[in-house]
């Protein structure tokens, strides 16, 4: 059989392994096997590619030998090998050293790296190509454009998540001017892409650099103004972009495995993006470009007139007497690094016959699934982590709900008309028998509105740092 056919069959095998791998990711028990399928698929794809590249170079060397040209084959193989080693080295360091709390940044960095790799591959393909067809040129332009937006956009997102000062300032231009700037950049890109279609190869490279330049600036102007709580959407979207960029690169180099794997990632990112948007009840456009619903101003002092305070001792007492306790974590838990303390508290309560569960809102934290990862790291069994649809109907039978650093996702105002968060799905914490909210102050959440839950009859506030308060509760529990 023709060796090319054999290679293609192996590529198909790799593609099947990727799809099966993602499918197995659907359940915690099979997810690890799914990941292994991915590793296997990727190993096959890489090995086959090196063999294929070697074949191409061999054929060319025979032609070159006739013209007495020097072969670049050893040099290229050396570069491939060396770069793979470098990549493995740094990849392994990132995979083993990064803390679980830094996961959102790491995912953002990976998105950006993927985007930049696509930019470089498509660029190199353009440099050495002799005659490209129109569709290949379009794919090259797309690859450069999407890839460069992904690269800088992810860098900005990672900087914001790492809370670097440089990215804290937001964006200096007013919204209206920002839209004009973005539009101008997109138009510039469109012009460069259009010119690329009819350009000679030297011009084409310059135009490609221009496209990437526009993309880089656009990546910054698009992501810089987006606030922290909208980061889950941004990360999911950039995830999708990095896949689409890989897919476009697949059209450039004419490789089906790139198209398949890229579109798989693209689809996954898009689905996560739309899930996040629904969970925040905002449209993707309002997340990306600002604006959105405006609610009626409510006087916070009036809402909070009947707020009650409680102490760690009282909470410990309530928890000890309860049959079912639900912890509702939010970004505040991640900030206070309270996950281990929470897990310890749950252990003590369970030892005394109390059922402990965790209610996780889809957008709690800074990326999809953030809370689950933190709690899993703290040895919480995944069976105890409940999703919104699963736990909401049962809140009436919950004796004690402990809200830890969450605010907007438990705000009952979302059920009313005419507020900023109207229609957003929330955890029905207010229906629990007793609610304790652990929070530093009565300050508003990202939505900027007061939360009537805090002042409800069955609710009381425990003011302080999340981890310290949980530790105090643990101390009191032990004394009981």
């Amino acid at each position, binding site marked *: 059989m023709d060796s090319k056919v054999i290679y293609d069959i192996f590529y198909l095998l790799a593609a099947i392994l990727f*799809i099966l*791998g*993602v499918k197995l*990711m*659907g359940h*915690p028990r099979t*997810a*690890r096997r799914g*990941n292994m399928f*991915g590793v296997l698929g*990727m190993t096959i794809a890489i090995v086959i*590619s090196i063999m*294929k*590249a070697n074949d191409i170079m061999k054929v060319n060397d025979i032609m070159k030998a006739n013209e007495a040209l020097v072969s*670049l*084959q050893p040099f290229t193989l050396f570069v*491939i090998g*060396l*770069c793979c080693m470098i990549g493995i080295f740094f990849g*392994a360091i*990132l995979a*083993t050293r990064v803390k679980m709390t830094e996961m959102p940044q*790491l*995912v953002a960095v*990976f*998105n950006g*790296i*993927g985007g930049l*790799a*696509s930019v*470089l*591959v498509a660029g*190199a*393909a353009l440099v*050495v*190509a002799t005659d490209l067809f129109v*569709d290949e040129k379009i794919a090259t332009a797309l690859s450069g454009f999407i890839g460069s937006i992904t690269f800088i956009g992810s860098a900005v997102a990672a900087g914001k998540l790492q809370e670097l000062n440089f990215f804290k300032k937001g964006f200096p231009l007013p919204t209206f001017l920002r839209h004009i700037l973005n539009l101008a950049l997109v138009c510039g890109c469109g012009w460069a892409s259009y010119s690329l279609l009819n350009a000679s190869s030297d011009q084409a490279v310059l135009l490609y650099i221009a496209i990437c330049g526009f993309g880089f600036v656009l990546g910054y102007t698009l992501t810089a103004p987006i606030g922290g709580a909208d980061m889950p959407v941004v990360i999911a979207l950039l*995830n999708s972009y990095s896949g689409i960029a890989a897919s476009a*690169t697949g059209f450039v180099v004419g*490789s*089906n*495995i*790139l198209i398949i794997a890229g*579109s798989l990632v*693209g*689809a*996954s*990112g*898009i*689905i996560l993006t*739309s899930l996040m948007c629904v969970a925040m009840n905002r449209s993707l456009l309002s997340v990306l470009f600002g604006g959105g619903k405006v609610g009626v101003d409510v006087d916070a002092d009036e809402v909070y007139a009947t707020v009650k305070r409680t102490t760690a001792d009282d909470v410990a007492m309530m928890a000890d007497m309860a049959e079912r306790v639900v912890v509702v974590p939010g970004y505040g838990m991640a900030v206070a690094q309270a996950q281990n303390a929470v897990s310890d508290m749950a252990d003590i309560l369970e030892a005394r016959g109390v059922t402990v569960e965790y209610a*996780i809102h889809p957008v709690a934290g800074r*990326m*999809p*699934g953030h809370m*689950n990862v933190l709690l899993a790291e703290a*040895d919480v*069994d*995944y069976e105890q982590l409940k*999703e919104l649809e699963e736990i909401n109907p049962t809140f009436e039978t919950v004796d004690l709900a402990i809200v830890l650093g969450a605010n907007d996702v438990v705000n009952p105002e979302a059920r009313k008309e005419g507020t900023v968060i109207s229609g957003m799905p929330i955890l029905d914490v207010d229906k629990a028998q007793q609610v304790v909210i652990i929070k530093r102050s009565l300050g508003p959440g990202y939505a900027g509105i007061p939360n009537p839950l805090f002042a409800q009859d069955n609710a009381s506030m425990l003011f302080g740092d999340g981890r310290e308060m949980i530790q105090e509760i643990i101390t009191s529990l032990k004394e009981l």
Partner: protein
Amino acid sequence: MNFEKRSKLIIMLGACLFLFTGLLLAQDEPSSASENVIVEQSSDTPAVVAVSGDSAADHKSAMLMAGLTIFVISIFVGVEVITKVPQKLHTPLMSGSNAISGITIVGGILVSADCASADNKLAVVLVGIAIALAMINVVGGFGVTHRMLSMFTKRKKAPST
């Protein structure tokens, strides 16, 4: 699940639009390509060259169509498979798909052969950087996913009740 339907519809529409554009492009292709070939080799046997040019262009547009079909269908497969992933596994899903998007490494390796054939050392080095970056994605992505999933599947001590 209203949002699921909506997002699926949007993706379907986008995919159809993409396929449609591709069809238009593919129809456009043969004429312009065969013209090029004829212009380049005008003096000798234009008829034969035109025919061979046509078949080359046909091959190209067939490849494009195949690529587009694969793209659209694998998006559908992706949507079907991924909507079943539960919320608690969303972060491992993201880091896992990070690793899969490191597939660009295949593109990099294949292009590096073209660069070597074109005697362009600079391009080889450029692609080398891309290969290293994509490899970071692959190893880092799969590695961190494995680490996370081990935490998920690790059984805690038996419940004491």
